[in-house]
């Protein structure tokens, strides 16, 4: 018997029991569809979160005060005895291959213009913030390159703050009060949207020194560094560390690279996607049990046929191939249908709910399809083995 014939025989056998084959394949299809759909959603969320994080660029290094061994917030960001100063930031900026540096301090204060007032985030930043964080100025300009220790009282507004305080009035050149101090508006940022719940448009940007004075602080909360894409990360991190060690005497700071963060985040999200896929896989398992059941029944019913085949000279191996082939064809068809349903469902879901991004990853599709065929194979082995080991004489007598 040629492979061709085996395949024909298997398909013919399946076609003659249309309802049964359809339902068996449907079981597998539901399982595969669940896996594909769920992993699509997982992958979509993965992409979404990563893009949220990379909107500030990928070549970033963050230096925070306090030495932390575990990931998480150290109390040192709030207050500490070994401050990270603006001078530290300036020194870091002089390292070769460092393109920009932002000494950063964050707070919350009310911003007032005329009778309008609004409590907003206040970001104390340096003039290089747009370059480092990849932000754009919509109107006017960003903070000028003043002496960082004695900057002029200029402020740049976030998009939302501008709209709430000024409406349609042009804010450029106006005087506002932030936390009771007077600032002159010199620019408005382009809308950047939410980032993980934080509304970046609901913020005002003022020079770091002014923010430190306003909040009566000594230490920065963070120094963000932008390094050249051509530079070697490990080398730059080493330089940053040794420079700060020279200045502070001990290692009382933490260096986090964006790459590290993305790696950690990516692996967490991968695990999540996989876990969700595995949940969908339970259905696949049940579908596999379905194939096993149906094939067992089918072998029982077709004893006579098997006997006949054996009587006219079919070998055991051929019978085995025949029945395993049937199971694989069943699961393959089911898998393909499930793939269509799952990918289509993901596509439709992405269309209906734009907030929930979906992305069907080929890797998982191939994995799911392979799994379906594998399940068919496994589920087919036992009944096929049974069919092959039938005694032809006994089998024929069953007629």
């Amino acid at each position, binding site marked *: 018997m040629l492979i061709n014939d085996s395949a024909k025989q298997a398909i013919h056998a399946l076609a003659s029991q249309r309802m049964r084959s359809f339902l068996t394949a449907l079981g597998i299809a539901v399982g595969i569809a669940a896996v594909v759909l769920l992993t699509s959603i997982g992958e979509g969320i993965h992409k979404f979160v990563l893009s949220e994080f990379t909107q500030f660029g990928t070549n970033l290094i963050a230096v925070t005060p306090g030495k932390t061994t575990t990931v998480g917030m150290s109390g040192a960001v709030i207050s500490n005895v070994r401050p990270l100063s603006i001078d530290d930031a300036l020194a870091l900026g002089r390292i070769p291959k460092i393109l920009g540096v932002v000494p950063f301090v964050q707070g*919350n204060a009310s911003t007032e213009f005329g009778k309008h007032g609004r409590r907003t985030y206040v970001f104390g930043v340096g003039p290089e913030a747009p370059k480092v964080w990849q932000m754009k100025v919509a109107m006017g300009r960003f903070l000028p390159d003043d002496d960082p220790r004695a900057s002029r009282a200029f402020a740049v507004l976030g998009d939302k703050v501008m709209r709430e305080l000024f409406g349609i009035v042009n804010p450029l050149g106006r005087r506002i009060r932030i936390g009771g101090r007077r600032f002159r508006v010199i620019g408005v940022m382009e809308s950047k949207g939410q980032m993980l*719940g934080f509304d970046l448009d609901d913020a005002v940007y003022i020079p770091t020194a002014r923010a430190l004075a306003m909040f009566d602080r000594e230490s920065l909360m963070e120094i963000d560094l932008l390094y050249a894409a051509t530079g070697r990360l490990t080398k730059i991190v080493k330089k940053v560390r040794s420079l700060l060690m020279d200045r502070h005497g001990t290692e009382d700071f933490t260096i986090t690279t964006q790459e590290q963060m993305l790696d950690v985040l990516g692996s967490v999200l991968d695990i999540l996607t996989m876990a969700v896929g595995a949940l969908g896989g339970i*259905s696949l398992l*049940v579908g596999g049990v379905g194939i096993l*059941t149906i094939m067992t029944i089918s072998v029982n019913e077709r004893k006579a046929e098997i006997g006949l085949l054996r009587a006219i000279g079919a070998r055991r191996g051929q019978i085995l191939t025949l029945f395993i082939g049937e199971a694989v064809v069943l699961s393959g068809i089911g898998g393909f249908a499930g793939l269509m349903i799952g990918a289509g469902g993901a596509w439709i879901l992405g269309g209906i709910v734009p907030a929930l991004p979906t992305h069907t990853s080929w890797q998982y599709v191939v994995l799911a399809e392979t799994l379906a065929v594998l399940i068919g194979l496994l589920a087919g082995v036992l009944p096929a083995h049974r069919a092959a080991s039938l005694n032809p004489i006994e089998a024929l007598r069953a007629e």
Partner: protein
Amino acid sequence: MKIQDVIQFSVKALSGYTIRTFLMILAMAIGVASVILLTAMGEGARVFVTREFSSLGTYILIVLPGRSETTGGPPPLLGETPRELTLEDVLFLARSSVIRRVAPITVGSAPVSWKHREREVTILGSTETLFDIRQLSMAQGSFLPAGDPTRGSGVCVLGYKLKKEIFGNQSPLGEWVRIGDRRFRIIGVLAKKGQSLGLDMGDVAIVPVASAQALFNTSGLFRVLVQANGRNAVQKAKKTILSEIRKRHEGEDDVTVITQDALLSTFDRILLAMTLSVAGIAAISLSVAGILIMNVMLIAVSQRTTEVGLLRAVGATSSQIHRIFLAESAILSLIGAAFGIILAFLGTWGISRGYPDFPVTVPAWALGAAVFVALLTGLIFGVLPAKRAARLDPVQALSRR
């Protein structure tokens, strides 16, 4: 035909085909077990979080400096404000009748050193009230003494882990440690309590709030924990805090008050939604099991055509035939559900053996729901085969022999 007869008849029919029945029950059991197990794990996570929150103490309100305009968003957890929340504000709040205790908190990080050993840890500045509000317990010595909170004395309490790292097995009581550039005498060690909402209470040093403020050269507070007089007083306390602080801060609303209940219910909602969706995903496998039951029942109907014909010939009505086949699929799914429940309990037992800290409990509603859904799938997917069996013409069915 009585119900007992119907059941007896179906059970006999099912036990006639052992392998097939076993496989169907297996499929159903996998589905039911996964639904119950996942729900139990979700429930466990919920209980875990609730326990974490109650370790914070009861009737707690958290006051943070700063306020963001958009409600519903994240509160300004971190960040500075031009007007700080001061110790005087706290002492003022403590006078209110709806407030039982107030604990100011300043947080910072500084190296703690003794002899040649040094460790950089989180320093908490607070008062003796923190002990009751956070429901701490001591392993050795005593907590910060009561007294005027605006006067900082040079005493400190170490967390369990910090003590272990610096002193090993020696008793640290009475020893002097250097925190930052100041000296403190150790008067107590906290009992092991583990993580609590992200802050590891084992790896901290607690000093009087005024000493911490001097150490970090600040006058503001990071948080204020307020304990209300009782459940009913929580909302009143929130209002009081807001209005009193506004008065003291020249009419400006610049603090955020978070009640523990609000925090807890947010987490509760998120975790419940997660549990339900995970269980829902697992429930897809129940529908696959249902499809299998339908499939096999359809085969059974065509295999048992003669039997059905005979039954009709001896006087069974078509609705009785209908009932017999429905009963079969219902019994199948019920037995499957029973095995699933056993499997699930085995699973939870295994998990609780492996992770004793994580409370996995099978919620009663999940059991009920799983059995109900299993039965429902059996009935729904049993309808088509039962209908087909009932529709058989007795004469034709018998003549097929």
